C-alpha cells in the first residue's frame, strides 16, 4: 500500500485523559434522578411515576373499590363474609388460568385455547378416575399433564413452524373442544364424587380459626424478613436500599390487609383450601418471573426478540415453555372449575369463560403489548370480574347485561393500557 502512513500509537495524550476521566467519575451529574431517602423521597418518586404514566395497579384497585362500593350500596348482602368467601373460591379457577395467560401476554402473544384445554383437563380426570376407576392422584397428574402437552404442541407450531400464536391457539380452541366432547362420550356429563380429591379442592375449608390467622402471620413475616434481609445485603454491598421505616410501613399495610381477609374468612367457614393453593401458585410464579433467569428471558422476549436472540437466549425453547405453562395452568384451573360444579360436562370452557380469563389478565394490568405485567395482575383482574358477576347476580340482573358490563370494563382497561403506553412514550418510558 502506497499511502500507508501508520505510525506510533498515540501514547502521549493517554495519560492526561485518564486523569481527566477519573476526576469526572466522582462528579455527580445534576440531571441524575437521585431518590431522596425517607418518606419525602418515596412521595416524589411516586409523583414522578404518576406523571410518567407508570400507573401500576392503581387503576384496577380504584376500580375494585368503586365496584364494591356500588354493589354494597345496592345490596347489603354483597360484602358479607359468606358472599366474600364464595367469591374468593369462585375466582380461583379463572384466576389460575389467567396466571398462564399472563405468561403468554408477557411474550406479547395470546392463547385462545385455554378455555378448551381447561375443559379437557376436567373431562380427562373424570373419565380416568370415575369411569375407569384410576387412582385419583394419578388421574389428577395425568389431567394436568394433558394441559402441559397441549400447550407445548401450540408452542411448537408457534415457535418452530412460525404460525401466528393467534391462529395456532384458535385451531387449538376448536380441536380441544372436540377432544373433550369425544372423551366425555355419549353420557355428556360425568359427576365427580362429593368426597373425592377434586371436589375437595374447592369444598374444603380449614375451619380452625388459627389457620387463616396463621397464614396471615406467615405471609406478613415472610414479606418483612425477605425485604429486611434483601435491604441488608444491598446496604452491605454499598447499594441504595429502602429505608427501614418504608419497609415497616409496607409490612403494616400488608398485615392489615391479610388480617382483615383472615377475619372475614373466619366469620364464615374458615380459610378455603382453594385460596391457599391459588396464593401458593401466585407466589411461585411471581418468584419465577422476577427472581430467576428464566423469568428474565420471558420479559426480554416481550421487550425485543432480536435483542434476546443476540444475548444468546434460546427463543424457541422459551416460547414453547411459556405455552406449556399456559396449558398447565389452564388444566389446573379447569380442575377447580370442575370441582365447583362437582362434574365434568360438555359446557366446560365454553361461552364467555375464555374471554373472562383473558379479560382478568388484562384488567389486572398486564399489557397486551408484551413485556409488562405480573402474575398478581391475574388476582386483581379476576377479583374485578368475579365481583361484577356476583354483584349483578345478587341484583338479579340477567347474563346479557352481565356480558355487556364486563365488556365495558374490559374496554375501559384496554383504553387505560393504550393511553398509559402513550403517556409513557411521551415521558420516554415505553
Amino acid at each position, binding site marked *: 500500500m502506497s499511502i500507508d502512513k501508520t505510525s506510533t500509537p498515540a501514547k502521549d495524550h493517554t495519560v492526561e485523559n485518564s486523569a481527566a476521566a477519573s476526576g469526572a467519575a466522582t462528579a455527580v451529574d445534576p440531571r*441524575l434522578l437521585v431518590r431522596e431517602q425517607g418518606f419525602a423521597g418515596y412521595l416524589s418518586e411516586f409523583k414522578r411515576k404518576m406523571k410518567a404514566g407508570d400507573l401500576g395497579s392503581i387503576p384496577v384497585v380504584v376500580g375494585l373499590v368503586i365496584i364494591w362500593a356500588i354493589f354494597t350500596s345496592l345490596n347489603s348482602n354483597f360484602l358479607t363474609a359468606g358472599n366474600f368467601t364464595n367469591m374468593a373460591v369462585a375466582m380461583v379457577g379463572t384466576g389460575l388460568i389467567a396466571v398462564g395467560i399472563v405468561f403468554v401476554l408477557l411474550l406479547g402473544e395470546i392463547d385462545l385455547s385455554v378455555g378448551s384445554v381447561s375443559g379437557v383437563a376436567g373431562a380427562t380426570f373424570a373419565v380416568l378416575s370415575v369411569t375407569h376407576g384410576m387412582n385419583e392422584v394419578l388421574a389428577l397428574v395425568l389431567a394436568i399433564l394433558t394441559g402441559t402437552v397441549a400447550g407445548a404442541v401450540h408452542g411448537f407450531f408457534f415457535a418452530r413452524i412460525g404460525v401466528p400464536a393467534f391462529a395456532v391457539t384458535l385451531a387449538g380452541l376448536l380441536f380441544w373442544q372436540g377432544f373433550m366432547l369425544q372423551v366425555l362420550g355419549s353420557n355428556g356429563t360425568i359427576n365427580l364424587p362429593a368426597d373425592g380429591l377434586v371436589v375437595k379442592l374447592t369444598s374444603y375449608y380449614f375451619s380452625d380459626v388459627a389457620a387463616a390467622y396463621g397464614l396471615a402471620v406467615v405471609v406478613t413475616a415472610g414479606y418483612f424478613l425477605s425485604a429486611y434481609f434483601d435491604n441488608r445485603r444491598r446496604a452491605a454491598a454499598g447499594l441504595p436500599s429502602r429505608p427501614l421505616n418504608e419497609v415497616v410501613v409496607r409490612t403494616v399495610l400488608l398485615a392489615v390487609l391479610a388480617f382483615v381477609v383472615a377475619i372475614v374468612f373466619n366469620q364464615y367457614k374458615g380459610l378455603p383450601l382453594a385460596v391457599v393453593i391459588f396464593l401458593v401458585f401466585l407466589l411461585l410464579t411471581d418468584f419465577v418471573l422476577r427472581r430467576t433467569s428464566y423469568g428474565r428471558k420471558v420479559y426480554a422476549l416481550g421487550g425485543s426478540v432480536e435483542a434476546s436472540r443476540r444475548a444468546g437466549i434460546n427463543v424457541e425453547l422459551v416460547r414453547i415453555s411459556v405455552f406449556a405453562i399456559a396449558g398447565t395452568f389452564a388444566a389446573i384451573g379447569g380442575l377447580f372449575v370442575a370441582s365447583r360444579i362437582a362434574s365434568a360436562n360438555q359446557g366446560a370452557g365454553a361461552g364467555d369463560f375464555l374471554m373472562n380469563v383473558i379479560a382478568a389478565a388484562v384488567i389486572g394490568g398486564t399489557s397486551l403489548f408484551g413485556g409488562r405485567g405480573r402474575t398478581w395482575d391475574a388476582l386483581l383482574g379476576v377479583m374485578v370480574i368475579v365481583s361484577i358477576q356476583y354483584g349483578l347476580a345478587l341484583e338479579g340482573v340477567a347474563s346479557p347485561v352481565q356480558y355487556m358490563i364486563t365488556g365495558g370494563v374490559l374496554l375501559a382497561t384496554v383504553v387505560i393500557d393504550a393511553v398509559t403506553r402513550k403517556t409513557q412514550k411521551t415521558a420516554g*418510558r415505553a
Partner: protein
Amino acid sequence: MVHVSATPVLALRGVSKRFGAVQALTDVELEVHAGEVVALVGDNGAGKSTLVKTIAGVHPIDEGAIEWDGKAVTINKPHDAQNLGIATVYQDLALCDNIDVVGNLFLGREIRRRGVLDEVEMERRSRELLDTLSIRIPSVRIPIASLSGGQRQVVAIARSMLGEPKLVILDEPTAALGVEQTAQVLDLVERLRERGHAVILISHNMADVKAVADKVAVLRLGRNNGVFEVKSTSQEEIISAITGATENAVTRRAARTNGEIKK
C-alpha cells in the same frame, strides 16, 4: 506496512469475500493494535459492514488469513469471535426497552446465587462497570426506554465490555445521536482506548473520526484505499480516498478554493 511496537491484536491478510456474483471484499488488509482506535470508513457499499461481519464471525471469509495476537485463527461463527475476545456493538441496538439497565447489561449471562438471580451482585458490578467507564445515567434501575439515545448507545457499549474483550467493534455508534450524545459516546471510545482495548470504529462522520481515531482505514469498492494516520492527514485527503478522486495538488486546491467537498 510500517509495523509499530507489538504484534497487532487483529490482523487481516488478503481477505476476500464473495456473495454469488458480487465480490464484496478483495484482498483487504487491516491491522489493529491494543490501545488503538482504527476508524473504518468508506462510501455506502464499500464493504465496511461485510468486513466487520467477517471479523464478528457472521460471514466466514473465502480467502486470506485472520491473525489474532500473531497467530492464525479461523472465525466461522459469532461464537468463535466471542471466544477470541471480539465484541461487536451493532448499529441497531440490541437492548430490551422494558428491562432495566442492570437486566440489560447481564441479559443472557445473569449472575445467580443458589439458582436465583443475584440482583445485588449484578447491580454492584453494573455500577462498577459504569463507573470505570465514567458512564453517567440517571439510575441503573430504570428501564432502557427512559434513557436517551446516547445513553442507550453507551449502555450497549458497556454491555459489550462485560466479557472483557480485547477488540471492540462499533458499527456507526453515533449515527442517530445529537451533538452532546455523540460527545458522550466519543468520550467512551477514548476510555476504551485508555483501558487498552483495540477499537474498530465504523463511521460516516469525518468529525468523529478526526476526534477519536488514531488511524483511518479507507475501503473503496471492497478494496483497501489507504491507511492514514489521523493527526497528519487532512479531512480532504481522507474524503478523496473514500470517493476515489485522484489525490493530487489540483483536486486539493480545488477543494480548498471551493470551500466545499465534492461528494
